[in-house]
């Protein structure tokens, strides 16, 4: 429970600075510090137990399905790191209070910092490796925010993104690695995994697992070849650099290697990969650091180098090397944090971090200079300081390391790295602080406020103390920690300044002297570097990212080119491919159903259809012709329905077709009258081939279905339509009763279409659309807008058609017909008036609110269904009864008729709304005002406008 608290306190406390900032910066800093301190104290309260060798665990399940639990454990390693993280955190909080200017949002900074801190603590205290991943990725995220804190600077943004992408990317590899590890071990609890090393090491997945985990660790710890992100992260405010890149984030990778050391260290792969990666990183980091002119950049590559050192030690896979690694982690954290903060102070006070513009600061900012000199001496490996001790141990261990059969490889290269390391340390210290004071600083440098040098001073204390009394000061910590790393008893070793005359002593000496010589011959070395300049990692990274982006854009933008034919073509090709493959890979037999002999009219209809289809292929560019031909297809399809006993379908098809045709004609009036020609023969062939394949598939499937027998549920419908549904037209009974819910959905589709059309055209008389409408030029028109004979004929037809509509509606339940068809007939009757007398005139007379009609129709249909609910029956349960009317006789009334009425109203409303809206638009495109109708030719009684009574006779 306590462990969870230690982890959660920084998270929970993170909001405190956001709230506290309104009470001032000091208060904010104190409040933030208090949060960290609380966590630290809580942690320290367990120090006794940890140092007694106890392992504390606590956890609750989180997501058992995947083995994720909210569990923590505390041993020496975790304790060591957690104290480092929290302790260093306190110093950084103090330092940042003074470092950041009053314009910077300090509260936000502390907010990020605490989140980051919590994530780091989480990493080192997690027992569950999936939980560890959570925290791991959180550090990437929070560090992204911290590095990008000064987001107005492009460098900050770039650096933050790079850090996120590289460490986040590594984190993804780690996810895979951890999942593999957990699956191999059969548990995701670290404390158990550490017990199951044998199982893991014998797994065939060992190497991939290790590689993936190393991918996470190496990216986080900036190991070669992922080292390049770290210097760019230096765009962050110095407190961030000091925290993230000395003590915490980059150490996460080290922590992970140390944590899993007992599991992996004894494998060949570990040694073969980890040790050289560390060595190379150490060397390259140092070499690059030497030539950096930016203080923070120099320190950053130095950090890379030191991380490499630590990694190498862990990679050597011996317990003593592990001890050295732990010791160096501690030492590096102290002097490097001190150096970062010093560099920050120099930058803060002198206004520059460029080593070429610095010098002689010892006299100008003595406190800072002295502290920094001590820290850099430690970094250089000068005896009596802690850096010397662990570096010497490293050199000692390297002499025991035989890699690839070459006993000299590690010692020589390690010494070389130490030499370069000494050189850049000298360069850092001497070029900045020693020499003659300069007077060309952007600002007049002086020592910063105590809040900025005090944290450095606090860190210098262990640098010196450990350097002088290693066994006393650092001994227990190192031992307890190393024990936890190694997981078993440690061999004999001593932390001491003097180990006698050992190879390591010589190597240290060579490194120091050689380092000084190298520093002195800096110009020569610099020329050398230019000659042997390796590829710039940043450029490679940038190149890779932009190549990736460009590649992605090329792929996406060439495929998603906005071409509908291509989209549909691909979709149809997939359909054809899947359909054919699916069919051919399953058993199929020809059907045995007896076929119907072909009738002559059917054959003729087929010929007509085929001819029209072929004609459409060639003539579709003439749009009016295409429409006329399509009408022909509709006619043949309706005939087909009649031929095969589907009168309702024929009625529906034919009446829908005419409305569709009129809609298309209305649209065509404003659209171009022809489609442009296709010049591309290949495209035409591809199109034709695909069309033929789809057509063949559809036809073949239909044939296969039609030629076999089957059992269907519709026997029930045929049997029950009359007795239970109260109608003899089974199709209608299905529509309004058995499957009334389908019909309910269907009229809603119509209703939605209408209101969408309404909304779409509502705005067509404004803006660009209106301009287009005004510019449309029509070919020559007939001067007679409303032909007299047409007007008269349609007037006679109107009541006739309405009568027919009522008839069709009434009998729909028993004979072909019904609400939908009746609705269309009414619509057709009204359309006739529009066609003959003009929309304006006719619409004036149809005093119906079409939109309300749609809503009302749907509501009526719905209410019919709801009525049955109220009676305790399911939605849309119909009933029917016989009533005996005088004169009329007994008639049967089914409640489904009311439902059909809803259908009827909706259909009429839909057609009316759609046509009304289009007519509004068409009107705008007219060349000149159209006579208001109904008849243009002036006759004795022919020209009565808007009058309703028939009295205007002369």
């Amino acid at each position, binding site marked *: 429970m306590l462990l969870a608290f230690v982890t959660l306190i920084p998270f929970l406390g993170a909001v405190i600075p956001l709230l506290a900032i309104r009470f001032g910066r000091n208060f904010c800093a104190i409040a933030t510090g208090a949060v960290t301190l609380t966590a630290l104290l809580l942690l320290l309260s367990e120090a006794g137990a940890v140092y007694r060798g106890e392992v504390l665990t606590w956890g609750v399940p989180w997501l058992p399905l995947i083995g994720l639990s909210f569990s923590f454990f505390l041993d020496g390693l975790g304790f060591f790191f957690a104290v480092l993280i929290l302790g260093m955190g306190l110093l950084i909080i103090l330092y940042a209070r003074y470092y950041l200017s009053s314009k910077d949002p300090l509260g936000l900074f502390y907010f990020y910092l605490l989140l980051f801190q919590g994530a780091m603590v989480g990493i080192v205290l997690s027992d569950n490796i999936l939980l560890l991943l959570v925290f791991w990725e959180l550090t990437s995220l929070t560090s992204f925010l911290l590095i990008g804190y000064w987001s107005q600077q492009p460098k900050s943004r770039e650096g933050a993104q790079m850090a996120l992408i590289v460490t986040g990317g590594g984190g993804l590899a780690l996810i895979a690695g951890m999942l593999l590890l957990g699956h191999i071990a059969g548990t995701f609890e670290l404390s158990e995994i550490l017990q199951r090393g044998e199982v893991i090491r014998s797994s065939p997945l060992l190497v991939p697992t290790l590689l993936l985990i190393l991918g996470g660790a190496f990216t986080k710890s900036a190991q070669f070849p992922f080292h390049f992100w770290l210097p760019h992260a230096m765009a962050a405010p110095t407190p961030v650099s000091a925290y993230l890149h000395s003590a915490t984030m980059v150490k996460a990778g080290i922590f992970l290697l140390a944590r899993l050391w007992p599991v992996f260290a004894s494998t060949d792969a570990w040694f073969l990969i980890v040790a050289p990666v560390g060595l190379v990183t150490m060397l390259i980091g140092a070499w690059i650091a030497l030539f950096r002119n930016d203080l923070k950049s120099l320190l950053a590559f130095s950090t890379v180098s030191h991380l490499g050192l630590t990694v190498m030690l862990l990679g050597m896979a011996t317990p003593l090397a592990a001890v050295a690694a732990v010791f160096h982690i501690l030492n590096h954290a102290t002097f490097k944090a001190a150096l970062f903060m010093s560099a920050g102070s120099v930058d803060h006070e002198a206004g520059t971090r460029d080593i070429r513009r610095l010098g002689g600061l010892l006299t100008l900012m003595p406190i800072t200079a002295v502290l920094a000199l001590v820290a850099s001496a430690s970094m250089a490996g000068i005896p009596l300081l802690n850096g010397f001790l662990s570096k010497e141990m490293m050199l000692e261990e390297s002499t025991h390391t035989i890699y690839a059969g070459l006993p000299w490889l590690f010692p020589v290269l390690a010494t070389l790295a130490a030499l370069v390391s000494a050189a850049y340390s000298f360069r850092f210290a001497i070029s900045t602080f020693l020499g003659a004071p300069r007077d060309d600083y952007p600002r007049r440098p002086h020592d910063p406020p105590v809040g900025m040098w005090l944290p450095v001073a606090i860190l210098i204390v262990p640098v010196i103390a450990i350097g002088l009394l290693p066994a006393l000061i650092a001994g227990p910590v190192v031992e307890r920690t190393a024990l936890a790393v190694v997981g078993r008893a440690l061999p004999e070793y001593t932390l001491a300044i003097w180990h006698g005359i050992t190879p390591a002593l010589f190597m240290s000496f060579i490194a120091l002297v050689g380092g000084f010589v190298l520093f002195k011959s800096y110009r020569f070395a610099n020329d050398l570097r230019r000659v042997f300049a390796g590829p710039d990692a940043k450029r490679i990274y940038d190149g890779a990212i932009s190549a990736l982006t460009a590649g992605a854009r090329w792929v996406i933008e060439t495929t998603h080119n906005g071409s509908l034919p291509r989209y549909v073509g691909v979709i149809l090709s997939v359909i054809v491919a899947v359909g054919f493959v699916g069919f051919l890979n399953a058993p199929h037999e020809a059907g045995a159903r007896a076929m119907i002999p072909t009738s002559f009219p059917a054959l003729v209809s087929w010929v007509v259809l085929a001819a029209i289809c072929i004609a459409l292929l060639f003539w579709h560019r003439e749009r009016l012709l295409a429409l006329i031909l399509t009408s022909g297809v509709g006619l043949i399809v309706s005939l087909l329905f009649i031929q095969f006993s589907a009168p309702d379908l024929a009625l529906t098809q034919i009446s829908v077709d005419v409305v569709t045709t009129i809609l298309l004609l209305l649209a065509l009036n404003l659209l171009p009258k022809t489609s442009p020609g296709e010049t591309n023969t290949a495209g035409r062939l591809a199109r034709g081939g695909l069309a033929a394949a789809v057509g063949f598939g559809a036809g073949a499937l239909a044939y296969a279905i039609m030629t076999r027998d089957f059992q269907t549920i519709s026997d029930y419908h045929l049997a*029950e339509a009359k007795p239970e549904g109260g109608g003899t037209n089974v199709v209608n009974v299905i529509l309004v009763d058995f499957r009334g819910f389908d019909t309910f959905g269907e009229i809603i589709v119509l209703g939605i279409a209408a209101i969408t059309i309404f909304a779409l055209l509502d705005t067509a008389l404004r803006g660009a659309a209106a301009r287009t409408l005004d510019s449309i030029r029509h070919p020559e028109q007939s001067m007679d807008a409303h032909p007299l004979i047409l007007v008269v004929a349609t007037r006679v037809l109107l009541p006739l058609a309405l009568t027919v509509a009522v008839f069709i509606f009434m009998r729909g339940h028993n004979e072909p017909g019904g609400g939908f068809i009746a609705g269309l007939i009414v619509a057709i009757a009204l359309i006739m008036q529009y066609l003959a007398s003009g929309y304006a005139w006719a619409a004036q007379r149809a005093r119906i609110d079409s939109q309300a009609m749609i809503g009302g129709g749907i509501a009526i249909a719905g209410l019919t269904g709801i009525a049955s609910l109220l009676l305790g029956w399911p939605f849309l349960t119909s009933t029917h009864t016989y009533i005996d009317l005088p004169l009329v006789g007994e008639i049967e009334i089914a409640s489904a008729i009311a439902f059909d009425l809803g259908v009827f109203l909706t259909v009429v409303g839909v057609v009316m709304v759609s046509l009304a809206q289009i007519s509004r638009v068409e009107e705008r495109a007219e060349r000149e005002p159209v006579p208001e109708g109904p008849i243009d030719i002036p006759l004795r009684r022919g020209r009565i406008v808007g009058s309703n009574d028939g009295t205007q006779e002369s």
Partner: protein
Amino acid sequence: MTSWIIAPAILPAMTAALLISAWRRDIQMQRLVSVVATLALLGIAIFLYHLASDGEARVYRLGAWPAPYGIVLVLDRLSATMLLLTSALALAVLAYAVAGWDKRGRHFHALFQFQLLGLNGAFLTGDIFNLFVFFEVMLIASYGLMLHGGGARRLRAGFQYVAINIVASALFLIAIGLIYGVTGTLNMADLAVKVPQVEVGDQALLKTGALLLLLVFAIKAAFVPLHWWLPATYAAASAPVAALFAIMTKVGAYAIIRVFGTIFGADAGALANVAVPWILPAALLTLFVGALGLLASRTLLDLASFSIIASMGTLLIAVGLFDVDALTTALYYLVHSTLVSAALFLIVDLVSERRGQTLDALVPANPISQSPMLGALFLLTAIAVIGLPPLSGFIGKLMVLNATYESPLAWLIWALVLGASLMMTIAFARAGSIIFWAADGRTTGPTWANARVEPMVVVALLVGASAMLAVFAGPVVEALHATAEQALDPAGYIDAVLGGGQATTQAPGG
């Protein structure tokens, strides 16, 4: 109790009908009615979820006709989950829209309610043709909503969206024709019974029908390369609409789970698991293209659209395995990505609103006011979308990886899932950095003081939901596990639909 199953269909239908006929000129009244109805819908969905959580499938026989002759609605854990998700999302989107979006075109609220009707109907129905009908209701309402507000880009994208969906609907009908032509039934439970008994000579036809049906759902679910409609549509739709559309692709996924879990599942005899060989490769391709698209995006809307594709890829990977654990994962991911995608689209809207002419283009522009709050919301949403901790995306990703561990293609799946995450990270880091960080110091757009807070609250709630999904992953996943178990074991479903209970609901007619 059971009679409430029809409520998620009736309520929005009648609400919309009333909105069209009675209050189509009174926006305030429309808002009130729409919000009240959606709240009620949420209440009903919660109740139904509670009802379904006993693990029993409940059947509602429309018109009191016995199955398989009439249409049935089936409430089980899966449909209840989808209903709940839909209504919760709807409420969030509606709350966002009433802040002003709904006034930019006509009939927003009616279309919105119709859209809910389509979705709810599709989730509840136990009949494949009725599923077609509600797909159409859902689609046509989505056309209306998508076109809400007008503009050339919207019109053109709308045309493509409609055209492609009409092709898909045609395919749906052909698939239904094949399936009916072989089995003689439309009821899903009845199909589940009849499919295993199909004669050898008919298997190819039925299988083709099943695969064509799969393709229909795949088009809705934006499987690559059937996804063409999605990027342009989502990029052209208005933000609240796009946010609501976050559920649209999920309908495809739902339909795959329902149809290929119940009818063509493990018990389907010769046709067992017909979909399985196809889904996983397509899902991987989908994920890959989604990630590429993210990387290629030039606008925030592109980013959001392709993140939908990528999330569908991830989701479908899990769907494609058709085992209980994987399906659990899929459902978790489905819930997660619906809420998070919605949040993302709303964020995009909030951003474009504040960037003047630049809108959502990923080019440096003036910084946007409200950036701290908005930036935080963007960051959190991005975290959730990419699948970084501590939000639900990370849990979802872990679950997907975990569920696919045993798959022979695990290495590929993992590489793609993780590689896609990296690409998303790159894309979102770049986008966020350009939008929120690359600033030239001048501020445009409404300032903090006079900007409306409600939209942000909606986004915050959605992000909060993602956090809750993560924190309470245990119980959530437990419930989804039960859901997956039920979905993959059709026996209970079949029994509920075709078994007893018919006698009590015989039609009163006659």
